[in-house]
């Protein structure tokens, strides 16, 4: 083919600017009407805050209550964000002038959120500030501020096996109740084998609801594992969740995933059991267990850490110096000094509290190390899982 490029008219360029101007001039001078469901979905699924109020309180036991939360229309929340079963809400409260947050897994079905309902089941934690506050003050009509649903503890069919052995301990049952409901509703599709550890039969949270789900849906099997039960009760196991027990209920000839949600002590025990099963990493998923305490208990925690530290914190243009205990996370120290800081998961995972460490040293427990590589290079850190080892100078984003 011949080269005819020289025959192309360069003079056409001269006309480009007037044509562009003409295109602009002849367009409408009004705000464009614009179909943008991508933005609408982003806003519906991830509202900045959800303003809720309590519509119902159910006492499950002396140390567990279920709260039903509905939109607080007066505050501008008209509907609830839909979510994938397994997600949590971060609750914002101010207790004695101290702004704090806690993440609680949603226990209700995703479908319920379309009808304007979330439920949270909260267990009273010994010495727990937030759970005590919630137990004492939340009643029908109480206004509650929550985040959008968040977290990564969800079933994903392209990654997970068709059967998931769900290992729950205590109030770690909540995300699994939501998942079981979602399976029964047809919103999730996997076989759930729930091994649920409780102290005794009378201690089991959601026992009736789980029974009902099991009899309604053949994809759900529930086995209660009771550590302190004297009586023999049909269909339950005694003791703890062990490798043997998992094998007993796992499909014999098929791959299976393991999802864990429970207290720190349960993970320490069960993780050792799981090693015996030699499963690929992709088939084991942990929900974060919330705030980590007592860093000195860790083998790699350094010696001679001062008990008290000073933190000089800058938020926007305001700088102040506060004092705190090296046994607390940087986030807790900020909160105890009445400073609100951004936080969601409080386990290092979500990255919401990402901040700058300008000087000083912090300790981060290895299993909570979710920083990005460049964060190390440029001294960024997650205050929610970092314990001060020295006096610190930090730069923190505004709480949001």
């Amino acid at each position, binding site marked *: 083919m011949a080269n005819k490029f020289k025959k192309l008219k360069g003079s*056409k360029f001269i006309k480009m600017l007037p044509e562009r101007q003409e295109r602009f001039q002849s367009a409408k001078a009004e705000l464009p009407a614009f179909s943008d469901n991508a933005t609408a*979905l*982003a806003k519906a699924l991830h509202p900045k805050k959800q303003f809720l109020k309590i519509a119902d309180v159910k006492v499950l036991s002396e140390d567990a209550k279920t709260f039903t939360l509905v939109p607080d229309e007066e505050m501008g929340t008209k509907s609830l964000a839909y979510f994938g079963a397994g997600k949590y809400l971060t609750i914002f409260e101010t207790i004695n002038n101290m702004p704090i947050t806690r993440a609680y897994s949603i226990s209700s079905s995703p479908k319920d959120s379309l009808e304007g309902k979330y439920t949270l089941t909260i267990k009273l934690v010994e010495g727990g500030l937030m759970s005590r506050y919630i137990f004492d003050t939340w009643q029908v009509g109480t206004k509650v501020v929550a985040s959008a649903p968040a977290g990564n503890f969800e079933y994903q069919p392209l990654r997970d096996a068709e059967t998931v052995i769900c290992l729950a301990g205590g109030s770690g049952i909540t995300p699994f109740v939501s998942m079981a409901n979602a399976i029964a509703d047809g919103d999730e599709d996997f076989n759930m084998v729930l091994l649920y550890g409780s102290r005794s039969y009378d201690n089991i949270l959601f026992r009736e609801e789980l029974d009902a789900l099991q009899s309604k849906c053949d994809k759900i099997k529930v086995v209660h594992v009771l550590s302190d039960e004297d009586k023999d009760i049909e269909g339950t196991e005694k003791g703890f969740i062990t490798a043997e027990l998992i094998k007993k209920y796992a499909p014999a000839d098929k791959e299976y995933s393991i999802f864990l949600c429970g207290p720190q002590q349960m993970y320490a025990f069960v993780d050792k059991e799981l090693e015996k099963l030699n499963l690929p990493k*992709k088939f084991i998923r942990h929900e974060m267990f919330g705030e980590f305490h007592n860093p000195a208990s860790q083998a790699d925690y350094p010696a001679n850490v001062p008990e008290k530290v000073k933190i000089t914190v800058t938020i926007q*243009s305001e700088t102040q110096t506060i004092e705190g205990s090296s046994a607390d996370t940087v986030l807790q120290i900020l909160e105890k000094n009445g400073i609100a800081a951004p936080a969601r998961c409080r386990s290092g995972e979500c990255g919401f509290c990402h901040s700058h460490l300008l000087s000083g040293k912090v300790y981060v427990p290895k299993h909570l190390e979710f920083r990005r590589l460049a964060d190390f290079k440029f001294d960024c850190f997650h205050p929610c899982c970092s314990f001060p080892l020295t006096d610190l100078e930090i730069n923190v*984003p*505004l709480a949001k």
Partner: protein
Amino acid sequence: MKNYDVIVIGAGNGGLAAAANCAKAGLSVLLLERHNIPGGSASSFVRGRFEFEPSLHELAGIGDEKEVGTIEEVFNRIDADVEWCRHDSTFRLVVPAKEGDEDAFVNEDGVLVTVDARMPVGFEAFSRKLDELVPGSYESCRKAFDMSIAMFKAFECMENPAKIPGSLKDVPDIMRMTAHTMTEALDALGMPKKAQDIFNTYWCYMGSPASQFDFLYYMCVLHSYVRSGTGIPKFRSHEMSLAIDKKIRDFGGEIWYNADVTKIIMKDGKPVGVVVNGETEVYGKEFICNCYPYKVFTELMDEKDVPEMQLKMLNARKTACTLTTVYLGMNKTKEELGITDYSVFIAPDSDSDKQYEAAQNYFSGYCIINCLNEIIPDCTPEGTSQLFLTTMTFGDVMKDVKPQDYKKFKTKVAQDMIETCEKALNISIKPYIEEIEIALPPTFARYLNTPLGTPYGYMLEKWDSMLPRTVQYLKDQPFENFWFCGATQERGDGYGCAYYTGEKAAGIVIKKLKEGK
């Protein structure tokens, strides 16, 4: 009352470059970012034991041992510290055969295809390879590169007339190149159709097909990639963003994260300040805006304050393409998976205009698969690798999806994309997925706050291409002290383009405030 010389709205690539350069020049700068980290698209995220690159495919301006690349220079100018990893190939294009394709053949992977082009770096090598694939294409390909070489020389003359003598008159082809589309120009050069399709593979990086996109700009892009290969930062693009964040603070600039600009304060017909998070007022002399014009004029200002021409511009332009990306943490190495290239473009049809047509609907079979370990072998733990799969769409493709259907929709799209790659490369992906994250237009809308979730700005159409945008930049701005930067401006999308617009806006502001010009 807080008062600054310059308020920069948005810490995307453009805003970061703008803030760093203003701060370096000694101006008091406040950079406002609605998220808790900088970068916009230039970021990273962690899932399990993987840290994913969210958006960057490759940077053309990283240079080599011999010379410093244009993007490297952006970082060098402000002394920002990024470790670069270089890569010396361009792209591989694979077009799986359809029933009845007469030119189908079985490639090295055992797949029936009509095109399998793995293109090398170097103008001569690229041209020879194209000729090998489509005989009779050497001359036209070489001629196109000769023109782009001359064109870059001319650009240097324009930028630095004192050092390099010469003028635009020496390259009369430039006017022809910019006034014609890729199709018009390559037809005129006599390039066979199939060779054109391979030659045009990077069209998706700009989001306009060959019949729309101007030849000059395409040659700028292709030239940059073919000249000396590409590069990426060692620690994902989060490293680039944090490197600039650090310099802004070192230079005395302030950055507020979680600081959403909710209103622009107007006085006597021009901006004088902004409201942050609906409560804090801050004031400035000059404003550099990395946020999209659509958002500024529909959400941050009263309609009466919006210049009429800006409303017309919004209506005249088309929002550019949107992306869907699937991030995969794999529990096998790239060798075990059988992946041999950093970047493979898989297309249902080799013709970019047909690809564009198909992309008006959700998943058309067009998918780019990247394996970061090809460039950074240790970017994942031993025995693992990470992949990301990208496809693009045009318009409000999500319009019928309800919140409760979104998760299933997402999974379906990801599955289609994964299966497309598995088939086209004859590899197995699904059984080895340890971590997966799926980003659809709503994900990008959430993180980038752009209409439709586009990362690409406005479509670079024939009448609204790079050169006219550049010539008209000053005229296109809404107020005498308000300067847009980022993907909506002269050069459209791309990291380098965004940095360029940020530096340019900073240059204007510095001149005004320091020299009174």
